């Protein structure tokens, strides 16, 4: 663990990998809930956790260095289920990258338990990890100027769902009617860092029957 000062009020904690970052994030949320740390923002990312709005970053940094971080446990939270039609235009490309038949993409993807590693890019856009490393895919060589809201997509080690229509370079494998972001709802975001997620194939699509 490396603790890097960020201006006068923040710390960036760098971990060895994404799992370690998620474990630290979970522990920081526990400590904040227990009143052990006062911080305005706890922002996990690929392999870091940012703590912003600290009164005394130096003291918190020293505490972090001695922190016992329990490994992530799988039983802590409920699993959020997201219904998906595996009908994305890049299914065949993803199948080719994975070296599996097209119908296998839905089976493998919906058989995986994901975890929201972090959010970013747009309100409610989660970067979900869980797929084994052999299923990483590159971004598309040419990003689309408009990806529809509800698109379920892959890039690198991550799965994401577009909360609204936007440009994007991820590989599209499906669509969901789930509303990822609704600022009139509490909570506004369907996904939040640390949440476990499972994609549930809607009946009648290729791949669903194969389970």
């Amino acid at each position, binding site marked *: 663990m490396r603790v890097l000062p960020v201006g006068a009020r923040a710390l960036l904690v760098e971990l060895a990998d994404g799992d370690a970052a998620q474990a630290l994030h979970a522990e920081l949320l526990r400590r904040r809930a227990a009143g052990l740390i006062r911080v305005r*923002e706890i922002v996990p990312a690929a392999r870091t956790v940012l703590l912003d709005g600290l009164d005394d970053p130096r003291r918190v940094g020293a505490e972090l260095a001695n922190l016992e971080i329990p490994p992530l446990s799988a039983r802590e939270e409920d699993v959020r289920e997201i219904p998906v039609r595996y009908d994305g235009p890049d299914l065949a490309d993803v199948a080719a990258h994975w070296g599996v038949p097209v119908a296998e993409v839905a089976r493998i993807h919906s058989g995986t338990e994901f975890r929201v590693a972090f959010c970013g890019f747009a309100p409610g856009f989660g970067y979900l990890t869980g797929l084994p490393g052999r299923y990483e895919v590159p971004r598309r060589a040419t990003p689309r100027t408009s990806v529809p809201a509800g698109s379920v997509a892959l890039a690198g080690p991550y799965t994401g769902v577009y909360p609204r229509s936007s440009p994007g370079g991820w590989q599209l494998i499906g669509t969901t009617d789930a509303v990822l972001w609704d600022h009139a709802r509490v909570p506004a975001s369907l996904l939040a860092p640390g949440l476990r997620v499972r994609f549930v194939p809607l009946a009648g699509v290729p791949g669903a029957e194969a389970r």
Partner: protein
Amino acid sequence: MTDRAFAVVRSGALTTVQDQGRPGYAHLGVPRSGALDPAAARLANRLVDNSAEAAVLETTLAGCAVRPRCAVTVAVVGAPCPVTVDGRPVAWGVPVRVPAGALLDVGAAVSGVRCYVAFGGGVAVDPVLASRSTDLLSGLGPPPLADGAVIPLGHATAPHARVDTVPHMAPPRELILGVTYGPRADWFTEAALRTLTTRAYRVSSASNRIGLRTEGPSLERACPDELPSEGMVLGAVQVPPDGRPVVFLADHPTTGGYPVIAVVREADLAGAAQAVPGTPVRFVPAGHR
């Protein structure tokens, strides 16, 4: 629509609703947003007896004009500019009573960039995540003002007979930004670290509420790797592939994949909000804690 509202007659180059923004949601990808010059926004509110959190208008260079449907007390601070009511000059930086149906015109900034226009009772558009701020990066909050739009006002809660005036610090001819190095200073060459704090930059015309872009010497990377996305703070000096530092302002993305060489003192960011394109910029080491 009640009479507590104003119609937008001239929306100007970019006029948005701003308050203290949406801190606390960065982990969901929600930018903090809020007035770029928070002290000016607070001052405008104080002049019309609003609470500091009331929403105001933030104009950009060209000002704006609105026609209140009710008599309302307004105050304009931030960038100095001519202010008129039905064509007659009124004072900048003091509370002004605007009659129902009169035209309030906030003129082009004489110096600086952003004027803050407070209305007694505050701008009362629907809040999103407890803030009325327009967030230009993520699209949360009300859209920028458009000609013909009708914007609701809140009810004034206190008498506004108090006369007050404000001292004004003119926007500096040179923008001096105190910085502390890090968190990714080690991704740059020693020469780049020296360049940042010894060479002259200028404010780029590509600057906006997301970031103050600069023109000047390119900062060379020591580490060519791709940086995995990491959390970003207000005032972060991010260095994109062209090597010109960008200072993150209120609508900055919550995560980013370019290394942050240094962070600007928060107190210096109001100056960044008021620096017109072409203004010389100096990054000055703020000293280590």
